[in-house]
């Protein structure tokens, strides 16, 4: 089997699998027939006629386009029952109609293809926005997600093959007309049809509901991507990269979903935009490293973890360190010839560790040990970096060993001492149980502070002083974030952050 045909078959199979929950939720003989018929047609168009020399990513808009009639066809009963012979003209529909008419009018002015494409996308977005009730957040999110996906696959497709722009514009226009007609005729039906996507999303959510399931899913998709490039990621084409990006974003979404809080959506959104930009760049012929989406997903996970714990300074230190190293690494062979590069590692490590220590586990002994570790490491690296009179360069293996030992020591310093908090939330309450991590320490004081998402708007602290090894409290949620500070008899001040659970499902589905 040719490589491109295999890639197309994988994408086709994944798409068919993704639509399977929709078939199951609205199963009937006719819907099964519709499913098979559309999939067969799509298989013919996408795999058979797609061309052996063209990557699958070129025709992904086709795949997405066919999902809309397939989904509508599966729910034909709902559409029939909702469509009525009445055609009530109200103000909203007239405004919507005028918007579409104006948009099509502009589109007919023979503007550049790029402008047409954006107008097509805009129409799609405007249509969705205007047609949905403002209270139906789920439909809006669904619609926005569809528009984003359409934009992404269109951009990638056209970057790969500019000749596909006309076809994509046509498909976009057909979708817009289809959607406009449906909304103008019977907006309620479209509204309810969107609601039926819950079944698909529930299935997807189930796939990522536990860490091991998410891991299995991600690994499975990543394996498909590796198969596409014959297990040589350095030679990966756009298809394999796209799938790897999807796997990385799925892993990131699963990670973000485990501890959803206010920064989750922006971070995941930024990751999606960056991933699509990277893919589009690669499709345009720019050199991109294959592991970029993996690195991006891991970075975003780190960012989410740090933001959850309110470690802004640590995040800043890591960002500055990464920027410095990135800048230095651009200089050819810098790390081989300069001891400054190696000296920077403990300096940056010290900055990151200190910021973490100050926020999470502040203690004078901890800071003292951290300073000592950094100083001795710097001294060792300085000795190795001293210019040898005969120009002999100490092997990098010595420096790597020293930096690895430094990292281990820093981690050991950060993990030692303090308290751990076990938190459980109910609807409006949170129960906190603070316990010793070390054997000898006892609690000196505990404070509970309520803040908003940005750490501001602090409410009065409630201090409980005792000399117990454990302490528990049952508190009512007073704000978005609860900061628990516990100081033990050894002087270690531990800070733990708990976010009020964000009921995303409630927001999404509450007004259906």
């Amino acid at each position, binding site marked *: 089997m040719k490589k491109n045909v295999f890639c197309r078959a994988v994408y086709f199979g994944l798409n068919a699998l993704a639509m399977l929950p929709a078939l199951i939720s609205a199963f009937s003989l006719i819907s099964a027939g519709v499913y098979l018929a559309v999939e067969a047609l799509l298989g013919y168009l996408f795999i058979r006629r797609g061309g052996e020399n063209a990557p699958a990513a070129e025709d992904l808009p086709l795949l997405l386009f066919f999902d809309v009639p397939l989904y509508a066809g599966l729910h034909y009963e709902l559409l029939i029952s909702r469509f009525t012979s009445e055609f009530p003209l109200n103000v909203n529909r007239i405004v919507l109609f005028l918007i579409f008419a104006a948009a099509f009018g502009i589109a007919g002015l023979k503007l550049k293809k790029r402008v047409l494409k954006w107008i097509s996308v805009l129409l799609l977005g405007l249509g969705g926005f205007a047609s949905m009730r403002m209270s139906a957040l789920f439909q809006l999110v669904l619609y926005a997600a569809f528009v984003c996906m359409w934009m992404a696959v269109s951009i990638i497709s056209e970057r790969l093959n500019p000749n596909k722009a006309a076809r994509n514009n046509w498909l976009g226009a057909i979708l817009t007309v289809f959607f406009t007609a449906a909304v103008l005729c019977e907006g309620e039906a479209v509204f309810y049809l969107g609601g039926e996507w819950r079944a698909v999303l529930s299935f997807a959510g189930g796939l990522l509901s536990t860490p091991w399931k998410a891991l299995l899913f991600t690994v499975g998709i990543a394996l498909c991507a590796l198969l596409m490039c014959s297990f040589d990621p350095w030679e990966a084409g756009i298809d394999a990269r796209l799938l790897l990006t999807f796997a990385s974003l799925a892993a990131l979404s699963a990670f973000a979903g485990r501890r959803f809080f206010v920064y989750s959506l922006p971070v995941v959104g930024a990751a999606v935009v960056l991933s699509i930009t990277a893919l589009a760049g690669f499709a345009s012929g720019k050199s991109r490293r294959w592991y970029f989406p993996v690195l991006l997903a891991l970075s975003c996970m780190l960012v989410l973890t740090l933001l959850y714990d309110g470690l802004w300074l640590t995040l800043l230190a890591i960002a500055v360190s990464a920027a410095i190293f990135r800048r230095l690494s651009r200089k050819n062979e810098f790390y081989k010839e300069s001891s400054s590069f190696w000296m920077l590692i403990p300096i940056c490590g010290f900055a990151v560790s200190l910021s973490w220590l100050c926020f999470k586990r502040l*203690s004078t*002994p*901890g800071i*003292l*040990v951290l300073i*000592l*570790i950094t100083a*001795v*490491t710097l*001294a*060792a690296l300085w*000795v*190795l970096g*001293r210019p*040898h*009179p*005969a*120009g*002999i360069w*100490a*092997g990098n293996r*010595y420096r790597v*060993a*020293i930096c690895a*030992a*430094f990292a*281990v*020591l820093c981690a*050991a*310093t950060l993990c*030692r*001492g303090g308290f751990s908090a076990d938190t459980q939330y109910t609807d409006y309450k949170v129960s906190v149980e603070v316990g010793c991590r*070390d054997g000898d320490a006892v609690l000196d004081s505990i404070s509970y502070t309520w803040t908003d998402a940005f750490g501001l708007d602090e409410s009065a602290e409630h201090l409980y002083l005792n000399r117990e090894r454990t302490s528990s409290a049952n508190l009512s949620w007073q704000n978005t974030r609860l900061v628990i500070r516990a100081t033990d008899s*050894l*002087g*270690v001040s531990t800070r733990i952050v708990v976010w009020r659970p964000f009921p995303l499902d409630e927001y999404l589905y509450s007004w259906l």
Partner: protein
Amino acid sequence: MKENVNNDLSGAASAPRGITGVPTGRLSDVGRAVRRLLETSGREIFADREKLPATLRALGLSEVEVYRLCLLSSVSGFEELIDTEEPATQMELDRYAANAAETGLGRDVIMDMMAELTCAAGSAVCVSQLSALPDREQADVPAFVIPWRVYADDLRAVKAAFNKWRDGGAPLPKEMLDQLWPLVNAGIAEAQYYLGYILLHTDDGADGPEEDTRKKGVELLTMAADAGNGPAASALGDYYYFKGGSENWGLAYDYYTGFAAPVLGERQRLAMVDIFNHRRFNGILLRVSAVFLAVLLISVLWAPGAPVFSVMPAAGIAALVLGAALLALGVIRQRKFPFDNLYYVPTGMFLIWAVYMFLRLVF
């Protein structure tokens, strides 16, 4: 190339003593004087240190020739050289040539004098032309000596071409190698140096000479250097210096400070400075390692962060013992192998300290 050498010495092997290689009639004044002396006084006269100069002067030799003969007669192995009864072996001749270097006479003088002496005594074959050079590996080949004058012109031509090639990058003439091989086979150190140098600096591999060529080059240079050729010793010093590493720098040091000492150029002198500085730098590394050991000691005694992190004195003592052992090992190693790379000592010292601190932080 052995095919360039005429090994037809069957006649020479069975020839009457005294009629080999160089005809008797072509002996120089020195040769004739020695022959006469041997015929009249026997070889015992050479052992008589008081009578010998006067006797030689009486035979009409110049003061320089008398001085040289007196010097050479005091070299170990001279007895075998002038033994008229028993022919000398090649090994005895080679050994004598090597021993004669201690007189301070040039190799050309030594070889010329040896040729005259052996020819006069009939103890060895005196090769009159390189094309008649015997193959040393062949059985029943008599010992032979090649006078300097036999190959002096060839060697001069080779030297000129070699210098042009080395200094200006001029191509090596093909006939030069043809000239060199017989000289190399004859065991002439200078020729061995030229050929060894050429082989070592040739570019027949992807990156420098191929392994076999390089080995042959080093072998020839080593032979030449062992025979007292200064430039060969210098070239070998360069080779081992640039090869790097403890053992190689040791060899480079030996060659630079041996026969190469009088002919060291600017680059070689800088290399020597590097070698000396490396030894000095190793001393600094050891001193810094001692400082690290002190830091370890302070960490054990002071135990920073003791309220939160455990002290673990036993682990501290073990780390101190290990650190001291490593330092002692470094010192011993540096004495035995002064050009060794000692970066592992401070690194190891740091790692021992890190392990001790890790135990403190974790347990």
